[in-house]
């Protein structure tokens, strides 16, 4: 394996295991490795790929795929993707098997009962932070809350909802509301 691909693997595979609580927790570390340690990108280039990863659909951690692609083309993208998703997938797969095997066991019920309030608190906290950092002022907030109300009360398709949000915001902006 060429040296560069090996480096991508060595940088991203350990970071994979540090992604506790979600992929966004390691962005600062990725920046440090890619810009300061390995000089694969300038800080400005990193800001660009980060912006693309925020703009694109799919998991935010595809940021790493994009870095791999910028650094070493298609092989780089593939190696970086495997490195960032691979190691942790073994863990969740083993856990899923264990859960199926011992379905309904006392320890399993205790773990679920213990983790659920933590998960609920983390999700609510993430939403709180999202709402606080929402771009687009009151109009965006109104869209977020309307979208919540629609999702709670109807069976509306989420894709249509996103398109609606995009359309309403663009029109609202044209009318001077945001």
């Amino acid at each position, binding site marked *: 394996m060429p040296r560069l691909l090996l480096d991508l693997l060595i940088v991203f595979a350990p970071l994979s*295991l540090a*992604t*506790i*609580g*979600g992929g966004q*927790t390691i962005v600062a570390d990725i920046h440090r490795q890619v810009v300061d340690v390995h000089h694969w990108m300038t800080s400005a280039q990193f800001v660009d*790929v980060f*912006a*693309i*990863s*925020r703009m694109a*659909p*799919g*998991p935010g951690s*595809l940021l790493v795929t*994009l870095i791999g*692609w*910028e650094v070493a083309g298609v092989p780089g993208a593939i190696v970086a993707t495997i490195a960032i*998703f691979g190691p*942790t*997938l073994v*863990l*969740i*797969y083993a*856990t*899923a098997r264990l859960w199926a095997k011992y*379905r*309904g066991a006392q320890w399993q019920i*205790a*773990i679920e*009962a213990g*983790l*659920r*309030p933590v*998960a*609920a608190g*983390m*999700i*609510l906290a*993430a*939403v709180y*932070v999202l709402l606080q950092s*929402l771009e687009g002022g009151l109009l*965006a907030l109104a*869209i*977020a809350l309307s*979208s*919540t*109300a629609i*999702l*709670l009360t109807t069976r509306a398709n*989420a894709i249509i*909802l*996103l398109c*609606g*949000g*995009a359309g*309403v*915001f*663009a029109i609202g902006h044209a009318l001077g509301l945001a």
Partner: protein
Amino acid sequence: MNDTTTAPAQGPTAQGLTALKLFLIFARIGVTSFGGGLSGWLLRVFVQDYRWLTEEEFLNGLAIAQALPGVNVSNMAVWIGYRLRGGIGAAASLAGIIVPPAILIVALAAVFSSLRNFELTHLALTGAGAAAVGLSLVMGITAARRVPRRALPVAIMAATFVAVAILRLPLIWVVLIGSPISVLLAARTPR
């Protein structure tokens, strides 16, 4: 206790669900989920639209996906895929949520410099992002509603919220310290 927890691994509602279908569903979510909130999408699709999983099952999986290292949504893809169709289901779901959006993001990067200059692109993405917050908020409301109305679980939920949202403590410490305490307390609590 909810009786669905003792149901066989493949509930009657998930019959006819093939690995290919799982791949296609995850791929569809992967390439249309502008603005984030992917776990909220999964709740919408697998619990509310198709009813292949109960809310309880989904939230249990989500709690475990969050506690383990790894990206939440790829963890959830493995968890849901395995739960519904075993190993092949896990592989198909994972491939669906990673490969198509990975190809798309590289394609987007190629045209990004021109896309970025359109104000409309920015406005549409801001609007879609705001709407996507709804998916996450609904998931938060669902998860909170399903926390037992007892002092201990509610206190743990509140403490986690304060630690992350207000005190901005690193998630890794909240997970590594908060989760074991919460599990130990749950294990000691008579049900």
